[in-house]
Every structure is written in C-alpha cells, then in structure tokens.
C-alpha cells in the first residue's frame, strides 16, 4: 500500500483561487454563495450550518458485441444546505445556485428543522470540529474526460471483439467516469475545495450452448479506481478480455463442483466484497445505533464489543484509510469536513475489533469524543451520512506467496472474481459466488470447476483465516455503487487485500440447489 502525497496543508484564500484554476467551477463565486447561505442560517438562529456546492461530471459508455449502444455525458450542478436548529437537523438541496435559491434553500432547511422538532425526542448533538481552509486535488496524469469519444468507443468495441475472438458468443463492455468537484463550507469557518476523478472499466463475456440450453459468463476482474486515463492504458483490458472469452467457453464444459466443506483460498478480486459486506458494513456506527434498521439493517456488533470482540484470527488486521493511492474513498476531507488523517485507523487489529466508522454527531452516543472522518453525500443535494473510507485487509508481514497458500491443502478450492452476493441485515450469514472456481489438489492448482458459492457466518469465517499473502500479492479492488440509506445513496469505496486461506468452509454448487 502506497500513500498518496496529494494532501495539501491549509491554504489561504488566494491559494484557493489559484488552485481553482485547475477546477471547472468558479470557486470565488462558490465561496460567495456559501457565505450567503451560512450567514442566512446564522441570522436565523442555527447553532451550526454547512453547505456543499459543486458539480458531478459523468460519462457512461456502453458497447455490446459490434455495437456502441450508449455514449452519455452529464454535468449535474447543485448545492445542499444542512442546518442544526434547537437540536433538529433540516436539509434542503437544489440544482440552481443563484442567490434567491440559496436563501430559499436555507429557509426550507430551517423550516424542516422546525417541523421535525415534535418528533426529535433525542436532540442531535455535535462534537467540536476543527475549521480548515484547504484545497485537495487528486493527482492524475491524464484527465479521462479529455480522451476523445472515438478512442473510448474503439476501446470498448475492441474489448468485445477480443472476448468473442477467443470463445465468447457475446460480450458487453462499459466505461464509467465520474469527477466530483466540491466546495464544503460550514459555520465554524471551514472552507474546503476538492476534486477527484474515478474510472470503472467493465465487461462481461458470455458463451452459449444453444442445443443444451446452457450458458456461462465471465465478468471482468479489472477494478474501479480513483485514477486518470493512465490507469486504463496499463490495465491490460484486451488481454483480460481474451482470457475471459476463453474462460467463459471453458466454464460451459467444466466439471461440476461437489458441494461440501473445503479449505478455500480466496483471491483479492473476490475477497474485497467479502471484506466490504462482513466487516465494512458491520462496523458502521449508524447501523449499530439503529439509524439504518428500517432498510440497510443493523449489525451483530454492539458498542460494548469494542476492544473485546474476537472477530477473526490473529492474522486479521483491517485498516481504514482515505489516503491509499487509487482508492475510491481517497480524498483530503470527508463530507463533514474531517481531514483524511481522522480516517486512518484500525477497525480490526490481530483479530480484535478496535474501531467503529463514525460520521459527525455519532461519537458521543458511545462515549467517544470525536468522529473519525467517515461521512459522504453522493451528490451536493444529498444529506451526508456515514459511509466507508477505504477498508482493507493488511498483508502478511512475513513472506507468503499465493502458491504457499495452496501448499498444505489436500482438497480445496481457489476462488477468483466476485459473483452473486447476499448477507443478512445484521451482517452475519453470508453467501458469495465468484467468477472462477478451481480445484486445489495436494497443494497444487487443479481443474476449472463450473460454478460455486461459499457460505458462512462472519466471525466463524474470519476466525478460520490461517494463511495470508504478503505485500507482493496485495491488490486493491472496489465498487462505484455501494447502496445505503433512505433515499438510497450510492458511494464509491475500495478494499484491498492479499489472497487469503480459510479452513473448513461450506461450498455449494448452485446447480444442485435448484
């Protein structure tokens, strides 16, 4: 894991303006607009107010076989103002940034705060926040929005062709780009301008046996990243597409997995999602407090388990951060204005649960002084909620290769790529599929198997971890679209890990489950 050197110290107004030249929006104007809203909120008696203004620029391009199906570009501008009035939150968001709209927005937010007072049986309380002035710009070599539509289309059509040349009957490929540009300001004096760009290339190769009525697929393993176009150039997408075409075809005739209890080795391209679902979500304090009980769910972890729960084996250390290069949650400040260093903590240390993830106003509910920088709003017009920073499984400090993990397995399975996933609302009972399942026989990688899924309970599973790759095997994966909250917000997040070995895990064959 390399740390990004992108964090900039607190900056002056003139430095902000200078850096703003590297952004799309006029930041002087945004600062003025923020001031209008915050002054208005203060005059009306709000004890705290914050505002996020900015733009999300997106491109979504999709090809299927020999056809470019979509090339959509969007630029969504907006603001969201949040006020705290007599212990009640009020929030309002809109796309129009003119003075009249900002003032109306503050009035509507204040109105909402007053309206909820009658059911505010537990007043919202905030900890003290440091007020920072800063600019943070994600480093990248080549802006992907500057790459021509021609080049992007050609890339996707080439991916489809490569997969089909090597055995797939069909292939769809897509490219998602997003650039967030934000100004965060609050009534305590914070003024933070940030911009980051992320990119997600994806494809799915499908092979069909029409006579038997069978088909199989192999989805891409190349992860989404916070990165510029240079990431796409070195990602080896065409080579991967060729492999995927062959593997989709090979899966059609692969032997069936015999369900049972196995020692399994999970590749980072699969394990990231298991980390996300079992550890990422179960350690979110808003879930533990019940704030998500009606939808995303609660957690099997309770506040009294902090520093007590043996969640996994001694090999298990889970790290939160906002500074990992390429991480989809990497940013200078979260959406409460907390600096990245606040989100640099261990969630699990040598198997012991050490920290919850927290957003503004949550820490005091479990007797802690300060939240730890885990807030995100998926658009300027959305209420910021607790969301994950990058959350990753630390590699083994001792030398250990993938082959070392296979060595003492007599009869096991190696799982690559994320497939079907599902977990209960308290993040305990899970079942995860994959893209590729291979036999491990007498310490060696064996034949490809048709389909599979592993099933388990979170603590039992992580306590069975007994082998971990070293840093040379580490891989950062992640998603653009983790859903949470009502109304649903989607967040980008990365999870890194080495390959890992788990003992005595239940593996099932979906074809037998029919």
């Amino acid at each position, binding site marked *: 894991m390399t740390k990004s050197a992108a964090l900039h110290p607190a900056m002056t107004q003139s430095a902000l303006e200078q850096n703003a030249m590297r952004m799309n929006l006029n930041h002087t104007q945004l600062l003025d607009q923020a001031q209008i809203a915050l002054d208005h909120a203060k005059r009306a008696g709000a004890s705290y107010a914050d505002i996020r203004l900015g733009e999300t620029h997106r491109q979504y391009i999709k090809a299927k076989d020999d056809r470019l199906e979509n090339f959509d570009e969007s630029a969504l501008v907006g603001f969201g103002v949040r006020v705290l009035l007599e212990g009640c939150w009020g929030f309002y968001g809109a796309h129009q940034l003119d003075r009249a709209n900002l003032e109306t927005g503050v009035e509507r937010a204040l109105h909402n705060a007053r309206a909820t007072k009658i059911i505010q*049986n537990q007043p919202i309380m905030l900890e003290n926040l440091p007020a920072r002035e800063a600019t943070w710009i994600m480093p990248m070599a080549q802006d992907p929005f500057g790459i021509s539509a021609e080049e992007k289309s050609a890339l996707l059509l080439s991916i489809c062709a490569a997969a089909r040349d090597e055995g797939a009957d069909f292939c769809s490929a897509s490219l998602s780009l997003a650039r967030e540009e934000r100004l965060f300001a609050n009534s305590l004096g914070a003024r933070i301008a940030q911009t980051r760009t992320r990119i997600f290339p994806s494809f799915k190769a499908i092979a069909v046996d029409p006579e038997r009525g069978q088909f199989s697929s192999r989805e891409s393993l190349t992860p989404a990243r916070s990165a510029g176009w240079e990431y796409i150039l070195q990602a080896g997408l065409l080579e991967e597409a060729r492999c995927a075409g062959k593997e989709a075809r090979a899966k059609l005739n692969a032997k069936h997995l015999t369900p049972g209890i196995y020692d399994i080795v999970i590749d980072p391209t699969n394990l990231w999602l298991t980390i996300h679902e079992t550890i990422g979500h179960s350690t979110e304090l808003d879930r533990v407090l019940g704030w998500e*009980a*009606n939808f995303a769910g609660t957690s099997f972890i309770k506040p009294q388990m902090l520093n007590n729960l043996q969640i996994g084996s001694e090999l298990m250390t889970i790290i939160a951060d906002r500074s990992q290069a390429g991480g989809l949650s990497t940013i200078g400040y979260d959406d409460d204005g907390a600096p990245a260093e606040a989100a640099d903590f261990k969630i699990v240390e040598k198997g012991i649960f050490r920290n919850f993830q927290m957003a503004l106003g949550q820490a005091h509910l479990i007797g802690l002084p300060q939240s730890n920088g885990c807030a995100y709003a998926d658009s300027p017009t*959305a209420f910021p909620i607790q969301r994950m920073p990058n959350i990753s499984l630390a590699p083994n400090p001792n030398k250990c290769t993938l082959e070392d993990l296979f060595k003492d397995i007599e009869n096991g399975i190696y799982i690559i790529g994320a497939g079907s996933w599902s977990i*209960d*609302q308290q993040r*305990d*009972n899970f079942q995860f599929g994959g893209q590729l399942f291979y036999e491990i026989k007498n310490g060696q990688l064996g034949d490809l198997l048709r*389909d599979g899924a592993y099933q388990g309970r979170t603590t039992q599973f992580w306590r069975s971890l007994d082998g971990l790759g070293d840093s040379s095997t580490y891989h950062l994966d992640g998603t653009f679209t983790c859903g949470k909250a009502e109304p649903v917000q989607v967040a980008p997040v990365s999870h890194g890990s080495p390959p890992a070995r788990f003992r005595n895990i239940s593996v099932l064959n979906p074809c037998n489950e*029919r």
Partner: protein
Amino acid sequence: MFLSRDDAKDICDKLLARTRADACVIEIDGGEDHSLRFSRGSATTNTSATSLSLKISSHINGRIGSVTTTHLDDKTLETAQRRSEEIARLLPEDPEYVSPLGPQHYENSIRYHDAPKLLQLDALVSHAQQAIEQGQLMNVETYGCINGARRFDALATSNGLFSFERRSEIDLSVTARTRTDSWSGWAGAHEFFAPRLNSAQIALAACKKAAASAAPKDLEPGSYTVILEPDATAELAFWLMSAMDARAADEGRSFYARPGGGSRIGEQLFDEKLTIRVSPGDSLAPESSAGYEGVPHRSRDFIKNGVLRALYRSRAWAHKTNAEPVPFARNFIVEGGPTSLEEMIRATKRGVLITRLWYTNLLEPRALLLTGLTRDGNFLIENGRLTAPASNMRFNQSLGKLFAGIEALSPTQRTWRAVGAGASAAPALLLKDFVFSSQSSGI
C-alpha cells in the same frame, strides 16, 4: 423543479428547432422530493430537494451522442446540444440504429394527485409521529422512513412525438423491534394518492409483529411449506419480470431461452394460477403511459395462467427480429385468488409465514436460482396457527420450480415500494417445498 406541460413543451420545441443533427430527442424530468427518517422513536435525517435534468440525444448518420444538464439557461442548453452533436459525430455507426419515434397513442395512466402539501415534510412528520406513538403504546422501538414526491417526465422527438406525465408518490415503511433487540416486525405502503396512505394501519401491523412475546425458534434448514405475504411475493415476481429480456432469450442466455434456439414465449412455464400483467389503466399498480424510448405501455399479460406471453424488447431488437417493441415495466400486478391469508394459515400443518425478504440476488441465472433471507416477521405455523416467531433463514430457491407449484393465492393488494421505484400489487401465496439452506442470527 416541477414544470408544467406547456413549459416542458416550450423547452423541447426550442431545442428541437435548434438541432443540427439528423434527428434529436429531448428528455426532461424533475420535481420535488421530501424524506424523513426516524430511529428509536426520534428523527434522524430529513431532506427536501428540487431536481431537474434535461437530456439531449443527437442522432447523426446512425450515431447517437447524449448530454444531460441540470440548467435551463440558453447558454447551458446551447453548449449541451452542440456537445451532444460533437459526440455523435465521433462515434462509430450503430449497425442497429433506429430513428426516434413519431407521434404515439398512449393509454391513460392516472398517477397524480394535486396536493403538494401532503407530500411535504410537515405532513411526513405527522405520519412518522403516528408510528412512533404506536411503538410507545406497544412498548417496542420504532424505526422508519417516509418519502413524498411529485415528479414529471417529458419526452419529445424531432419526428413529432411529445409525451408528458406527472406523478405524485408517498411511501411509509416502519420497522418495530423489541427493546431488547430480540425480535422485529415490518410493514409498509406506497401510494400515488397521498390521502390513501394509512400510517396508523402500517404502524400497527409492524408493531404487532414485533410484539410477539415468545422467543424465536430456530428451524433446521430444509424444504418447508411457506406463506409469502404480498411484499415477499412482489419481490420474487420482480426477479421473474426483470429477467424478461427478449434479446437475452433469443440469444440463448436467459431462463426464458428455449434449448435449441428462440424464446419460450407460448410455453407453460409456471402454475396455471400465475398471471402477471402490466396496465397503465390499472387501479392498483398503474404503469406509466410512455415507456423507454417513448414506446407506449399497453395493457399486457406477460404471464397468463402460467404461460409466457411476452418479453421486453427494445426498438432496435424489435426492428432486427421483425417483432413488436415492448418497453420494460417497472409497475406490475400479480393476479390474486380467493383464499385469505387466514385460510392459508389454517390449512397449513407445519410451515413458515414470511413477511418480507432481504438481499435477494440471482445465484444461477439459467434456473432463476435466487438466494436471499427472510426478515422482520418470520413465524412458525403449526396445526393451522402461528405458534412462535421463527428465526430468519437463508433460502436458495429456483423461481422456475417455485412458481410451477402454487397451492393458493389471496386477493391481490398494493405492496410497498420506495418512492421512485414504481408500484406493484401482489397476493399472499401458499407454496410447498420452499428451500431454506441455512440459519441466520440476523434480527
């Protein structure tokens, strides 16, 4: 921003007149949204927001470039339109290109009630307060979310099509949990007409389920008779419906593909008691008038008495296969039957009553093998009555097999969906041989 029909049409006309492309499509949507969440009987987050998005798709020599913006000023629109044309010129020609639709005849869909105040936060607080008070009365903790919205959608093409629809929506969902976190119940509803939302009834139903006094029983994994309440039925039916893409079936990569080639339209795939239909004029779950690409939604059976009758078909695929385009449906009705939920329980010697499902996902698409878990109100049925809460379970179940053997259906009723996700109506179902694969401690 909640535009009128005239305002939306003026904007569309202006942009269509300015196009330099061979053809042009304008889509505008927007509105006002309000939302309130509460937890342990107290407000947590709330939002009000206005939104607007305008998409310009320029068609040039069989290529389409699209740009979306949130601003309606002339300069922004001009820039967006020229950019969409620039993108289109740079793309490869689409071998399956079809030009935009011309004027269409749409069935009437009534989904708007002009009472914006009933959707705003003050009104939402009153509904939430009822739920909180019901929880206090029954000594359970209440958690929930209520959303209100009014929205519009406009679509115009340079070939003469203009469609405009408005809808109002409100939804409330309430989870009740015992104060010791040992059991939970849930209920919810979604309405296009805000006065129809009965928050007292929703709160009571959720609290009653949570207030069960007996300790939950752990059941062994295996095959069970189950009664799915309407929300659980609708969730399973959603998966049946979402797999209904004609192209995937024709290309042999779908449950609805026939071995040897082609789709299974016309085949008896399910129990004859299963009918799923879509209708803009339906009183329970009306579909919108205009579907994707402006193709009209027609009253249509997708499954009739267990026989597959229709699949979704894009205009490009319809053109290529010389078939009728059928837009994807977000609103659907699963037809019901004459048996009440209480009769189903009385007729069950041993089984499980399921309130709702959670984290459903396809495990194996060829058999529509679905996994997921029960949640917030699982009850053991023994000798015709509910005897205890039953701990939640994971299921791995082929929907093809499950819907091939339906024992009984209740009258259909409107089910919960979050605002913006469409509407569905479904009955309770009595089913045999539902496969629970493992136990869950999740409450």
